[in-house]
């Protein structure tokens, strides 16, 4: 059980579910409406643009002084810039390299850019632990709010590149689903006034898990939180069979921080009248999580 936190606003850039080849690419917005500096836009990779756009959109009605922290999550970070810099090292034999892709390749680039653009000096951290990155960020946010902080900006970003799709394809990771990407940000609050949903509980597991154990885990998680299964929407990102579940990865594709898309979708479900939403996620049967969202 956790201290409940409330979702004040959300922003998302995600796929419409249509795969092109083996990739479900996000439908990108017109960035210039939010990232107004043309030079900055030009220097930013897609991951940075998606992240900064959705973060700034989520924070649009919030003053910088009132932001209590920026917590980001990413599985693979800014892949395009990483590859661009790596290629330049080889192509130019380590001589006279342009630093921009290196600077933007660090995993905390997006959190840092948001702090810089909005002049937010508050707590700022990035979690990078495979398919538990978002969950780690959420646990940190919950701790911060329990410690008295308010208005925690929490977000996740991962991007598709041609290389990442080719590698995942060769690894056999795309047999059941296309590669995915996206960026979601959430403004989390300590009080419910003006909020749209509550994050009620979160549970994580590592290592292979059987269908039976997964089902038992789901049942005890729901009963611990007094949730009636007949009054529940299930967003399933695992290969486990769950009754009446929506396969959220069918839309967003498979990637390390896909659960952030499910969290955004859960809020949309609540806005449409759902009372309880369970997100059940697994990645390659190694990282697993359950997140419960409730209507207010």
């Amino acid at each position, binding site marked *: 059980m956790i201290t409940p936190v409330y979702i004040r606003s959300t922003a998302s850039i995600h796929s419409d579910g249509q795969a092109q080849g083996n990739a479900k690419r996000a439908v990108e917005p017109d960035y210039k409406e939010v990232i107004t500096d043309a030079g900055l836009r030009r220097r930013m990779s897609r991951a940075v643009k998606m992240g900064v756009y959705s973060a700034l959109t989520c924070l649009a009605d919030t003053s910088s002084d009132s932001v209590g922290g920026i917590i980001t999550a990413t599985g693979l970070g800014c892949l395009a810039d990483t590859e661009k810099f790596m290629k330049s090292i080889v192509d130019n034999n*380590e001589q006279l390299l342009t630093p921009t892709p290196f600077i933007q390749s660090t995993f905390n680039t997006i959190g840092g850019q948001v*702090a810089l653009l909005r002049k937010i000096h508050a707590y700022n951290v990035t979690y990078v632990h495979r398919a538990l990155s978002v969950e780690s960020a959420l646990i940190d946010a919950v701790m911060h709010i329990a410690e008295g902080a308010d208005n925690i900006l929490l977000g996740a970003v991962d991007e598709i590149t041609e290389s990442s799709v080719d590698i995942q394809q060769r690894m056999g990771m795309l047999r059941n689903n296309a590669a995915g990407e996206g960026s979601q940000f959430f403004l989390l609050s300590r009080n419910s006034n003006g909020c749209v949903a509550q994050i009620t509980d979160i549970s994580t597991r590592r290592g292979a898990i059987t269908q039976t154990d997964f089902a038992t885990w789901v049942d005890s998680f729901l009963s611990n939180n007094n949730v009636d299964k007949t009054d529940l929407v299930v967003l399933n990102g695992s290969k486990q069979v769950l009754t009446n579940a929506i396969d959220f990865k069918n839309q967003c594709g498979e990637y390390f921080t896909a659960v952030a898309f499910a969290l955004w979708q859960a809020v949309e479900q609540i806005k449409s009248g759902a009372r309880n939403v369970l997100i059940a996620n697994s990645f390659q049967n190694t990282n697993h999580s359950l997140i419960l969202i409730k209507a207010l």
Partner: protein
Amino acid sequence: MDVFVSGVGVVSAIGFNVAENMQSLASGKAGLRKPQNFATTLNVPVGEICSTNQQLKQLLGLPQQQTISRTALLALPAVVEAVADAQLTNLSNVAFISATSVGGMDLTETFYNDFKDNHNQGRLRMVAQHDCGASTEFVANKLGFGGMVTTISTACSSGGNSIATGARLIKHGLADTVVVGGVDPLCRFTMNGFNSLKILDSEHCRPFDATRAGLNLGEGAGFIILQNEKALRRAPYCKVSGYANANDAFHQTGSSADGTGSFLSMSGAMQMAGVEASQISYINTHGTGTGGNDLSEGTAIRRIFGDNVPAFSSVKPFIGHTLGASEGIEAVYSVLSIAKGAVYPNLNFTTPMPETNLVPQTKYVSGQTIKHVLSNAFGFGGNDSSVLFSAVE
């Protein structure tokens, strides 16, 4: 609730364990040399660990044919040493928060040489450990850590944030014992990154010196064991009494001249602990040797301590800037500063920066009364973290 430090483990250019590191610090023996374990045309000193990957595998009893990133090979011995030092026996509820800035980049670089021009080439096992979580999972699975396992990456401040997050897990009752720290290997990617920013010194770095000309990169791993009182199995070294994370929000890579972020992180850590500036015994600075960092950090130190600056130094001239590992390794040194009453020398210092006129500690001393040690780690993205270690009363 008190958070105690009960174990330390470190691997760096000046030693493969805690005892070797302390001996080198005491004798003023720097670990910088020209890179030998990986191919680079950059002719600059680095804090390289002598052992090759093959030697590390042999030392750790790991099969030679297994593909393991240098990141994981450096993290494992430091974690094993810290766990043994804290006399931990049952690891099934132990949490593990690691930190790294490059993950398994050393393997990815090799993969990429083959993959670049033909996406059907390159051995997949060389890229499977690219992500930052891979080395954490490797170590967690080797030791059987059954508590929360995660990884933080905030560039050069990563290790500091790992310590703070671990302390918070304990305070929130989410763990009794947490292994925290960081690891980073040297690799062509970061070497060339810092070189492209023109902040690598071709000589040994000179933190806080007027003639400083940049940093030397290093590699290694440092981990400490945090525990609540009931989990302790030995007398602790000290407590983690405060920590703070702030963002400079000035520039993606540069530091503000007035030290906004570092002022906030240092003063925040002291405020949490209820410790006054006059009570700080020693500051283990970030002190990279770049023009920007040392000016920014020095200015923040002057803003907080005025004319009564405590003993301070940068250990970067010993081990190089170990990026995500820096606050892991330097946390070990800070903890032992309290335990041994030691203050480490800032090598290669001759002339104070005119802007701050700060003079660091230049001689090793031990047997002092060291009650509160402030340790800094600052990084790209404006990420600034400070941790305050305090003696157990």
